[in-house]
């Protein structure tokens, strides 16, 4: 399947530490998006990186994309307890614009 797969499935860190989550996918993409989901809530869009981009920043978030390895990483710097959530990568194929293929997510827990 095309779905992105996140790694690790769960990550537990202390406040102030950096959190890195990885995503791998299988086929060529138009873009890759990262979402956050607090328990039982909706999906919040974090950042979109296009296939011709290698790195993007947004506040404490840094996303990289390596299309040769079909992988992406999300780095959250100086994490806070409020960052505790599930993080999902979702890919958009060039042939099916709009349809998001989600991975299973990484559950991040940040301890105060």
């Amino acid at each position: 399947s095309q779905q992105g797969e996140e790694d690790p499935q769960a990550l537990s860190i202390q406040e102030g530490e950096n959190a890195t989550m990885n995503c791998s996918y299988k086929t060529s993409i138009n873009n890759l998006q990262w979402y956050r989901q607090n328990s039982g809530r909706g999906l919040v869009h974090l950042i979109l990186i296009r296939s011709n981009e290698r790195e993007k920043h947004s506040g404490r978030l840094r996303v990289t994309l390596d299309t040769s390895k079909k992988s992406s990483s999300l780095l959250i710097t100086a994490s806070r307890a409020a960052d505790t959530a599930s993080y999902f990568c979702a890919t958009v194929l060039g042939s099916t614009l709009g349809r998001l293929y989600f991975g299973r997510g990484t559950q991040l827990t940040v301890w105060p």
Partner: protein
Amino acid sequence: EPEVTQTPSHQVTQMGQEVILRCVPISNHLYFYWYRQILGQKVEFLVSFYNNEISEKSEIFDDQFSVERPDGSNFTLKIRSTKLEDSAMYFCASSAIDGATEAFFGQGTRLTVV
């Protein structure tokens, strides 16, 4: 800040009953989507909708499902005869242009079929 709103937040229905899940996408968006997330599983694409017609649907979106944009603001998902396995969180999303831009999701409707 504009947001996608969904109602109800929680719906309990008996197996075999029809349910309609409602969504108000962001007003200037053109593409609309429904996704679902069964507890503990991935978020799965159901259907995309553009220019008053379905642009793509997944294998999950069978004849029991239908979508409609009855007016200029609402976007609905109807499940004609619910099954136990339809129990899930259903998310509506919209995007300004298409999948080349970010999709904004609502808070979801938790559907419980008993």
